[in-house]
């Protein structure tokens, strides 16, 4: 018979998640005057930033969906979660209307899905951390939600969010953002300036990296660079 100690299982799962996430490159998001912007280091052909609806963007770090598995053995990752998010949004639009799609409820549903898998001792945890950001008519009304690998969601109070694999990277990035912003605020900046700042923050000293940038403007258009 399959027996387990839930506490130990969760500790092991946490360890596994930490190990997998520690290799991932961070992602930063900011709510600017003209819309939302998400910047991360490019992972080649696999993308980490996607539009989910006409005003919600998804960005995540961690494992990509493992397509090598067969059928149900396939381990879900970033693409899988984005896929579910898009399907949830489309179904909601079909049943009600586009006005009724809100990031709060979407984050809640996705968070509970991940939590369900996280606490199930028989299942491999989904090693991802992602954010969902909703653009509204003013930067003050924009909303950013971060969902942890254990399915806990947090609403970000400030105008920017950092997703990093380790606590050290997180705090160093946050410090860098504060340095580069000085006495400015993201809400007052235009998109290009914000992208410049975020790129500078993400670039390690003396290195050059390629970026993946997602822009969700206030007129409901998504643009990828």
């Amino acid at each position, binding site marked *: 018979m399959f027996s387990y100690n839930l506490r130990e299982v969760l500790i092991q799962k946490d360890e596994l998640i930490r190990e997998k996430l520690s290799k991932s490159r961070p992602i930063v998001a900011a709510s600017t005057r003209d819309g939302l912007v998400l910047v991360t280091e490019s992972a080649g052909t696999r993308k980490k930033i996607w539009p989910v609806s006409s005003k919600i963007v998804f960005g995540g770090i961690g494992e990509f969906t493992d397509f090598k598995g067969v059928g149900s053995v396939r381990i879900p990752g970033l693409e899988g979660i984005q896929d579910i998010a898009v399907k949830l949004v489309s179904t909601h639009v079909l*049943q*009600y*209307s*586009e*006005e*009724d799609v*809100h990031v*709060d*409820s979407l984050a*809640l549903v996705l968070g509970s899905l991940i939590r369900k898998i996280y606490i199930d001792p028989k299942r491999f945890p989904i090693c991802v951390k992602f954010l969902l950001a909703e653009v509204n008519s003013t930067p003050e009304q924009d909303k950013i939600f971060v969902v942890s690998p254990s399915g806990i969601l947090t609403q970000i109070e400030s105008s920017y969010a950092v997703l990093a694999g380790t606590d050290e990277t997180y705090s160093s990035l946050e410090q860098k953002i504060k340095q580069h912003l000085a006495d400015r605020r993201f809400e007052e900046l235009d998109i290009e300036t914000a992208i410049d700042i975020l790129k500078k923050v993400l670039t390690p000293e003396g290195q050059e990296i390629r970026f993946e940038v997602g822009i969700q403007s206030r007129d409901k258009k998504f643009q990828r660079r």
Partner: protein
Amino acid sequence: MKLEKEIQEYVRSFAGLSKQSVKERDILHGTTILALKYKNGVVVAGDCRMCFNPTLIGSENFKKLFKIDEDSVIAVAGSVAPAMELIRFLRAEVDIYNRTQTHRLSFEGKANLVSRILAKFAPLASAGIVVLPIYASRNKIYGYDYLGARYEVKYLAVGSGSQQALTYLDSNWNEELSKFQAVKIAVAALNLAYQRNPQTGKVKLVYIIEDEIVEIDSEKISKIEEGDKNVQL
């Protein structure tokens, strides 16, 4: 929709009905309803007659305007039974949504729900049973056909007396109407239908949708009909 199964079950209970088996004179019909926009809101009005056919009146006290929530009103014409069920389903759907989701359902979402429920009711049309609602919020009026097709209008009358009411609205409606003028026009249009159409009764209920929904009862309506300009709306 959360109650899709229940709606399907309800429609299934009418299976096998056809125009031959259903006698038109045995089904209750609600008749004339109308809605019109004015400067700051919308007025919805309806008569209160319910009849089996042009020669047999069922009731003079059937109110065919219903509040769905704090900011929208639906008016129904056509067969009474599915109309009542449409309202019950819609209220339940909206209530479930508002209590379970993080945000309240938008008017657009509610209007889509009406379309979807009407589409489910479509098989009833083979027996001549149809519902024709008008759905209104503070700044929008939607008319529907019995299959659920939705169209936005500035004013609209539906039901057997709609021809007379629409003729009156066509010549008297404009965008700059005040609240009082709008109620007056709505009452006058329905009265014209009452005079010319045997299935339309006297207007007894009017709703004004602005910041909140205000009900105008028959007492106030008769004062407006008499030309009293000091009626508090």
